[in-house]
């Protein structure tokens, strides 16, 4: 195989060729400078060895010009490297709209992946060819890092906070998936494979292993199990807590006057430490769910909240009406007990 000869990982994602091209440029520049310096050092050291009859009369020399040259040339070259590297990096950190979102939970010493359709797998990850995949990742204990050399992607997975990474597989096959951040005794065994499949094959794989509930449905079940629905009522009904419809991605005004975007990290924090960010107009009466629900459960709840309608991050000063309406799966909870709490002020 080609990789055996070149000691290079396969190019199996849309980033691989970009990163390798940049790597090639860096190799070229470094190669030229290494050879140049090694040659000059050896040439001078031999030619002007002590006792040799080489001409040593010191000429005028353009001392300052030379110093200037080896300041300016490296500066220009490194700025090219910086710009090129930053451009590719920027793309790596911006998942495209409509990417398939797969959740990843790391723990000592295994990876758990949850597909939106409800499939979950351990250490291995199946993905369809040619579609952007976004991993939404969190750790249950220490810092881990998802690394797929063939995709040229890596992202640390932190406890207590979601990080994301994305890639678009471009070649079917089986590729290493490593934990790259040292995480304890069996760090080197915290690995598996990414299987890139033809889309049809992927659908088959999904169907063949489906356990019945999609992430959002599983989240809804959990939502009811944990009695979230007793306080968080559908929009239009007064609940003890704010309605969660159209919440995801919207701006939320807090009691302390701050405004936050309701993203995954905000929702997670609100489940585990509800008192830390209280929505304007509501009392800090929600109990913590720390210890009652694991990271995987939280991810399911977030999937449920997302399915209750997703709004684009509202533009500054724009009205709430610009948000798209609730899409699907609005819960038909009717145990509602109207409260006389005021509705949250959504916009200023």
């Amino acid at each position, binding site marked *: 195989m080609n990789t055996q000869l070149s000691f290079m990982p396969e190019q199996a994602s849309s980033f691989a060729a970009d990163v390798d091209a940049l790597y090639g440029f860096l190799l070229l520049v470094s190669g030229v400078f290494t050879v140049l*310096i090694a040659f000059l050092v050896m040439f001078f050291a031999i030619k002007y060895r002590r006792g040799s009859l080489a001409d040593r009369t010191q000429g005028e020399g353009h001392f300052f010009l030379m110093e200037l040259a080896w300041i300016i040339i490296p500066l220009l070259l490194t700025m090219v490297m910086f710009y090129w590297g930053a451009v590719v990096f920027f793309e790596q950190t911006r998942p495209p709209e409509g990417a398939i979102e797969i959740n990843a939970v790391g723990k000592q010493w295994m990876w758990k992946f949850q597909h939106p359709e409800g499939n979950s797998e351990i250490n291995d990850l199946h993905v369809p060819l040619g579609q952007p995949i976004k991993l939404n990742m969190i750790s249950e204990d220490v810092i881990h890092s998802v690394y797929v050399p063939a995709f040229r992607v890596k992202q640390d997975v932190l406890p207590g906070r979601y990080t994301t990474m994305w890639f678009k597989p471009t070649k079917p096959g089986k590729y290493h998936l490593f934990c790259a951040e040292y995480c304890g005794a069996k760090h080197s065994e915290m690995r598996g494979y990414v299987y890139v499949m033809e889309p049809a094959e992927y659908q088959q794989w999904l169907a063949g292993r489906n356990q019945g509930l999609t992430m959002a449905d599983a989240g809804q079940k959990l939502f009811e199990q944990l009695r979230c629905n007793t306080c968080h009522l559908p929009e239009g009904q007064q609940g003890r807590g704010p309605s969660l419809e159209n919440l995801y991605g919207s701006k939320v005004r807090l009691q302390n006057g701050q405004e936050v975007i309701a993203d995954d990290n905000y929702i997670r924090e609100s489940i585990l430490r509800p008192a830390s960010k209280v929505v304007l107009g509501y009392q800090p009466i929600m109990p913590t769910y720390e210890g009652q629900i694991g990271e995987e459960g939280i991810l399911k709840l977030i999937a449920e909240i997302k399915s209750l309608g997703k709004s684009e991050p509202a533009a500054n000063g724009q009205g709430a009406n610009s948000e798209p309406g609730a899409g699907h799966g609005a819960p038909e909870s009717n145990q509602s007990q109207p409260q006389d709490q005021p509705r949250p002020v959504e916009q200023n």
Partner: protein
Amino acid sequence: MNSPTITEPRRNYLNAAYSVRSWLLTVDHKRIALLYLLSITFFFLIGGLAAAFVRVELMTPQGDLVESETYNKLFTLHGVMMIFFFLIPAIPATLGNFLVPLMVGARDLAFPKLNLLSWYLFMAAGTLGLYATFAGGVDTGWTFYTPYSSTYSNTYVMATALGAFVAGFSSILTGLNFIVTIHKMRAPGLTWFRLPLFIWSIYAASLIMVLATPVVAVAILCVGMERLLGIGLFDPAKGGDPILFQHLFWFYSHPAVYIMILPAFAVINELIACFSRRRPFGYAFIGFSSFAIAIVGFLVWGHHMFVSGQSVYAGMVFSALSFLVAIPSSIKVFNWTATLYKASVSWQTPMLYALGFIGLFTIGGLTGLFLATLAVDVHVHDTYFVVAHFHYIMVGGTVMAYLGGIHFWWPKMTGRMYPEGWAKLSAILIFVGFNLTFFPQFLLGYWGMPRRYHIYPEEFQVLNVMSTAGASILGIGYLFPITYLIWSLRYGKKAPPNPFGHTGLEWTTPSPPPTENFTRVPIVTEEAYNFLPEDTARKVEEETPVGSTIHS
């Protein structure tokens, strides 16, 4: 006063007293330098032994020599010993301690007792580190990343971290001593621009020691507070932020790389000048580039955290700043190269190390550009590419310079010459062994092998076997100097005051120097590196071999 002669000076700092007490309570910077030399060699051997186990283990992909827990403790031991107890003190505490007063024409460092205290702190720290090792070891890696170190690891984290904490104070005291000495104790006539470049670089490194080390002390204290008192600083389960530790840690540990490499530059400046018999090309540029590195070095720590989850824009700023380090580094390399032009190059052992240093530091520095490049770093971060890169800087750079310096000043320190043939042979062995060990690791890293892996996929075995083979040559290469330098203490040729025909005040006093360094306060009337034309120099050496500027 005794009049100096080539044969044995009647009294010197070595034969001034022989009791154990006269060594353990000495305030003579030269004796303290030797105490450090012995101690760091001991720690180097322990760190090297751990590395040997790691390399032997990695010959097979299965992880069949030791358990994973043991493997993790071995690479941690290797990193902790080599970084905190060998590389950081290596050049400053041995060569720096010995040479700074001699080079500025002083009797001792500004605070001799503080200097001794610094050695005792260092030994206390080393003892803590060894205690942790023998009590059961520590498995966090030398980086102590949280929350693994603060909450999850059940090994001897605090003993080791406390060792690093105490070693830091030793480092601060050494740096402080150098700064004050260089400011206040220069001989009459020795202006800043007449100083050897050695002093410029050591001064820049001292600034970092004094300013950066307190931050790692804070970081270690915080880990202790979380680990022992349960105060949530880094563990999110306790309301902390794990990334905060990385910021604190790298704010010290990146500049710490410059604590290791700036003193190496210091040595190389002297070696290149001496063995090419030329004033270094661009003296002021080389001098100021050390300060540029020291200053910019404080602003680049975030390049260790491009994939840690820090903001994309922070990553970009840190990337751009990191590239700036390349500028002063290339100033140095090009100026050293230009110094060789129309020079009179002598291929003696220290020069072999210096030439090897230029090559290896160039590769180490250029591969640093790969790591500063955001998109490439995403791929090679935490792989063997990084391992290879920092070994090219720390071992190919600092250790090569250290060995070159030890050979160069060995006659001054001990009064004996090292055996040239053996020394050249081992310099070549070390250079070859080093490249065989670490070059394959660049390939492994880009191929995708993560670092700190005990068990690895089979396709990586070929390169790992090559690396281990190289390491065995490197290991043998290191044993040679240890052996023949000890041998030379008794059987080496007696050294004249200035065996290599170098300029600088340390060569004007006998080898080994008397306790008070100079019998009269030297007065400096000329620029540094004012080499006489070659034939004249040889004649001068023959006629008035000793301390002509002092005793005239």
